[in-house]
């Protein structure tokens, strides 16, 4: 299983560093951004699996806007919001914009790692489903070419058999001439 790449977006340098260190220790690839603009620049440039963003940040790009930007750039990016406001309303609004989950401050790292594991599992399943689909298409295509060839050949041979039967049953001609006519048909194949 490939390591997830996580983009941490938080204006607080202490939390940023803490998240970066803990996630690195947890064997994740980590990128950091101090605000929404820097986050957007990174999202446009690099492959990111999960965005972990603070909900409330100074300036006009907050966590919900980061969610929208991430989803617009690549709809398969998962977003987890970190919020001090444990209100369900904010969380629901974020989920509507495409966030997959939210965590309340102070961050419980066990909980965070569990959620990241879940995302990694789903992504692995999704990737193998896509690979299976592709393998199925390739196999189906190859099989269908072979089957078509056999199908057409079988029909051609059946046609020839029917013709030979007609020739052999045609009593207007002598047996010898019927047989020789039939043999000619076969050698003409």
């Amino acid at each position, binding site marked *: 299983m490939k390591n997830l790449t996580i983009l941490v977006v938080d204006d607080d340098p202490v939390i940023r560093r803490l998240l970066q260190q803990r996630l690195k220790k947890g064997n994740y690839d980590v990128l950091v951004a101090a605000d929404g603009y820097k986050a957007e620049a990174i999202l446009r440039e690099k492959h990111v699996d999960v965005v972990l963003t603070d909900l409330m940040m100074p300036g006009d790009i907050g966590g919900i806007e980061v969610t929208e930007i991430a989803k617009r750039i690549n709809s398969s990016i998962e977003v987890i919001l970190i919020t001090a406001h444990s209100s369900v309303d904010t969380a629901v609004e974020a989920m509507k914009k495409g966030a997959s989950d939210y965590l309340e401050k102070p961050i419980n790292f066990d909980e965070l790692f569990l959620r990241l594991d879940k995302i990694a599992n789903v992504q692995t399943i999704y990737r193998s489903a896509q690979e299976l689909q592709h393998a199925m*298409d390739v196999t189906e*295509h190859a099989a269908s070419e072979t*089957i078509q060839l056999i*199908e057409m050949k*079988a029909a051609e041979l059946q046609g020839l058999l029917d013709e030979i039967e007609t020739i052999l049953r045609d009593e207007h001609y002598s047996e010898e001439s019927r047989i020789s006519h039939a043999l000619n048909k076969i050698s003409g194949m």
Partner: protein
Amino acid sequence: MLKINPSELKFIAQYIYDISGIFLDASKSYLFETRLSSIAEELGCTSYQDLYNKAKRDPKKTIERQIIDAISTNETLFFRDKGPFELLQHKILPEIIDKRTPGSPVLKTSIKIWSAASSTGQELYSIAIVIKELIPDLARYNITLLGTDISDNAVSQASYGKYNKFEIERGLPQKQLQRYFTLFGDSWKIKDEIRAMVNFKKLNLMLPFSALGKFDIIFCRNVAIYFTLPDRKKLFNKIADSLADDGFLVIGSTESLTGVCPRFIPKKHLKSIFYQKKL
């Protein structure tokens, strides 16, 4: 997940065959468990024997329908492999239109098309889209597009014509998605102009279907593969009865009628095969 034991496997496989004609290999217990365990658990069954007893005793046959929904494979996509739809557009439809167009301009051209295992509707809607794009003056035509499937769920989803992002992204080009579907929350819904062209209803292909009348074009793709050879023979024989003498049959790209139905002969157009009746 509720486990199935070997003795249950035998009679459950027979029961599924009896109600649907679908032949499931009794050596593959996971096939039964992954598809039936949630129904069994929901009904509070302690075993598959229990589920079977409940299904047999259910006078409304609700459980039987649930089992059919769970067992029938609804793997399908819009324009699933391009070949059959190119065939329809470039060969079959032009030929049928040519043959069916009446001498008098006041009369309409009647064409009947059947998608015999329509699943959740993607195939029939794809056919409708091809027709819509090929025929500019649809008012001069009387086109019947019928989709049938054994699963109630599949028929109702097909009739509703709503598909989630994952279902829609597979196979359907962006241009046609934007033109023929409307965004509906997180999903896409087929537009009324296409929806109005088609009809869906429930049908078990194991039972007689001559009452549907004769069709000019029949799509019967990737369903007979779930039947035994004797049932496949019966099915294609009935299909031959239901197809006009100059009609067209399209089957799945990896299916074959050799040794199944001598009444059909294969014909090749570009990279695809279609079948016509031997006359």
